[in-house]
């Protein structure tokens, strides 16, 4: 017995010492930038979400997932930082006068990650696959003709906004193993993917554009939550990430550079136009007058946001109707009298449903509840998880009010199309013949000035009817260690790793 007891003590002590010893062993400082003597240049990028899919032709991905795949897949055209489109896999293109036939000349000598050479057949296959998977905007295609390096896309109806949809990623002809072994033409290829851990992007050595990418490897490391992301940044395990302003404030300014970028989505208090009492336009107007957007941006977001008056993102400057940016300045008296006119002098109860994973929307919701209280509306916040929000609130339209940011593509119509009465994604149940007519005229307009004017009128209609209360485009902040530079701010939500330089 005594021996056993002794052995137990020795064992426990040994374990304790071992534990303490391993704990105390000074570790070499995390060599995260990997910029060793061999000149291998590496960036470790933190991300809170994992891509849902690695297939560029699947409609399933999240905004974060798409923003990462932007570095792996390319389309005929590619968005530029100023919001325009540049030729990418297309050497050149022509649009006929009726805006029905788009003719592309495919770039010569472009190699896929697997070594195959790009032809028009690959592009045709990819676009048709994307169309089958219901990627936005492609339903207008009537036929595609591929011949060597020439591609002709024929539309069923004129659409002058069609080009931005051709940013869809191109994969080799007939390539089906897109989920497990993705192959594209972008500056990086996917070297490995470990769920819940990381996604490794490696330099595409034979990338068609010379001089980029400047990094050899980008590791996208997944953090479980905001706390883990912040401590990883502070500890230097990750070199950069997209952070919110609270996290940005906790980072050491001598170590990080911060770049403010628009998130290319509009946060709004969406009102279900089909339920009582929100079906009454005076009630919606009263809410619009009661909500103080400026206070939300200043208090909740510390000023990191651009006010919006319509679903069109402020980044698409020429299309934004600036007259309605502040169509409903905060006016409590006006709001009260509108409520009275609508028959609710004492206000009513309003349930605001918010997906609980979006802290920023929850914080915004609390602010709005306070603001609405001033006119007698008793707001309550109902937190649901994102899956429930998607099925009940967004798809099922079972809600009174909700707060979310809605994004789109570079095409202005992508931000506006959901407000058509019959649109499947019209989750606010907005219905206006005037709007439907303006929208269909806008997307068919060939003259650019006419098109812009029609879109502005459509936004005016949404604002007049208070389809919802549009708040702001929340800034997203890029924090990256000082030794890296070359961050490019795009009007859409993407991370372009190809231009990042490590000094």
């Amino acid at each position, binding site marked *: *017995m*005594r021996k056993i*007891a*002794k052995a*137990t*003590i020795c064992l*426990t*002590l040994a*374990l*304790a010492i071992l*534990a303490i010893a*391993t*704990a*105390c*062993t000074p*570790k070499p400082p*995390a060599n995260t930038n990997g910029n060793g003597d061999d000149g291998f240049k590496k960036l470790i990028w933190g991300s809170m979400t*994992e891509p*849902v*899919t690695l297939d560029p032709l699947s*409609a*399933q*991905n*999240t905004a974060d997932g798409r923003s990462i795949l932007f570095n792996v897949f390319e389309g005929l055209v590619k968005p530029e930082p100023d919001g325009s489109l540049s030729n990418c896999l297309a050497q050149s293109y022509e649009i006929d006068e009726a805006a029905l036939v788009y003719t592309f000349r495919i770039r010569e000598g472009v190699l896929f990650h697997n070594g195959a050479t790009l032809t028009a057949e690959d592009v045709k296959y990819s676009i048709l696959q994307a169309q089958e*998977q*219901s990627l*936005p905007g492609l339903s207008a295609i009537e036929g595609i003709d591929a011949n060597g390096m020439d591609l002709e896309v024929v539309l069923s109806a004129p659409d002058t906004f069609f080009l931005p949809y051709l940013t869809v990623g191109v994969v080799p002809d007939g390539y089906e193993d897109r*989920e*497990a072994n993705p192959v594209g033409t972008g500056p990086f290829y996917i070297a490995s993917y*470990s*769920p*819940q*851990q990381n996604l490794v992007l490696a330099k595409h050595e034979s990338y068609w554009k010379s001089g980029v990418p400047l990094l050899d490897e980008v590791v996208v*490391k997944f*953090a*479980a*939550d905001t*706390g*883990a*992301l912040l*401590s*990883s940044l*502070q*500890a*230097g*395990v*990750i070199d950069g990430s997209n952070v919110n302003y609270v996290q940005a404030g906790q980072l050491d300014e001598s170590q990080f550079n911060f770049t403010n970028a628009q998130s290319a989505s509009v946060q709004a208090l969406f009102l279900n136009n089909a339920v009582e009492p929100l079906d009454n336009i005076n009630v919606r107007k009263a809410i619009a007058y009661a909500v103080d957007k400026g206070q939300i941006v200043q208090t909740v977001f510390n000023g990191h946001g651009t006010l919006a008056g319509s679903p069109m993102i402020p980044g698409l400057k020429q299309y934004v109707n600036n007259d309605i940016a502040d169509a409903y300045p905060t006016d409590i008296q006006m709001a009260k009298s509108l409520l009275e006119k609508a028959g609710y002098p004492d206000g009513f109860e309003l349930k605001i449903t918010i997906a609980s*994973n979006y802290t920023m929307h929850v914080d915004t919701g609390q602010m709005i509840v306070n603001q609405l209280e001033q006119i007698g509306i008793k707001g309550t916040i109902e937190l*649901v*998880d*994102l*899956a*429930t929000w*998607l*099925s*009940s609130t*967004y*798809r099922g339209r079972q809600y009174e009010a909700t707060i979310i940011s809605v994004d789109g593509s570079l095409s202005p119509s992508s931000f506006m199309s959901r407000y058509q009465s019959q649109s*499947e*994604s019209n989750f606010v149940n907005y219905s206006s013949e005037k709007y439907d007519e303006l929208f269909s005229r806008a997307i068919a307009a060939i003259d650019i000035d006419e098109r812009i004017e029609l879109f502005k009128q459509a936004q005016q209609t949404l604002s007049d009817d208070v389809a919802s209360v549009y708040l702001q485009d929340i800034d997203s902040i890029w924090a990256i260690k000082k030794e890296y530079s070359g961050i490019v701010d795009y009007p859409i939500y993407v991370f372009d790793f190809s231009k990042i330089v490590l000094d």
Partner: protein
Amino acid sequence: MRQVLSRIVSSIITLALVSVLAFAAFNIIPGDPALVALGTEASQEQLDELRVKYGYDKPPFERYFLWLSGLVKGQLGDSFRYHRSISSLLEECIPITLWLSAISLALILAMGIGAPIGAAISSSLEFSARSSPARKKKHAGRLVESLLMSTCAIGMSIPEFLAGILCVWVFGLTLKWFTPGLFVPKSESFSAFASYLVFPAFSIAMPCSAMLCRGLYASLKKEMSSPYIMAVYSKGASATRALFSHALKNAIVQNLALFASIVAFVLSGSIITEKVFSIPGIGLFLVSAVSSRDLPLAQSIVMYIAFCVVLANALIDVAIALIDPRLRRS
């Protein structure tokens, strides 16, 4: 033999009940898996197509039995979220959680057994105070005891997530003994892998070892003042000898049931700790599976956890029966 058999049967019944509950719970909660998978812009046809592909068009009863039969055969199916087989995902994440559990258990044993023994030795004069009145030492013993008890009280009352965050802050960001978030896969470097896990293991071990410590110390104290120890003293044995050769074994047996629940708790993986430390074990996968409504994956992980708990309990029952002759007979 009959006892072991009935233990096995009751374990199987428990697991069957858990499978019904797990299936029912995940199928009752709102949120359509197909919609989560396809996103906001999916058309009705696409949604229907995916439901057919994963068998979600079938009635719940049929789905349950399909799932159960697959489970028995070891065919867990594919994960919605990761588009690959669940077994391949589990193969990656279970070893990580097992290592974390092993290190946690080592720490729990070290702290939960080491501390009360240490305290008992330093205050052992109190136990034998009747034979040698050394007042100063008695006073020191009391101090050690109250120190130990208050440390245990603090350890037990710190919630798991707070323990994790505190560890990150103290050991990671302040003392810089480890780098938060720098989880290294086992294949890359085992020592880096294990030393990263020490800190999350410590935060798991904190409340568990405090519980064990309290229980064991109380038992030790009771044993040391019982008549048979007086007999040991009267034969001229030292306090240390009385403690190790006689009191300790009895005190440990009394705490085996407590230890069983600790083992089950640790083995089932600590979801919150894995999240705080970004460890890609079963806990992290379970959270992501539930939030993305990856029902097949979530159900499989719940079954795995249930299996661990049932197994740990069954094994400890057998162990207690082996150690304690009184239980063997009854």
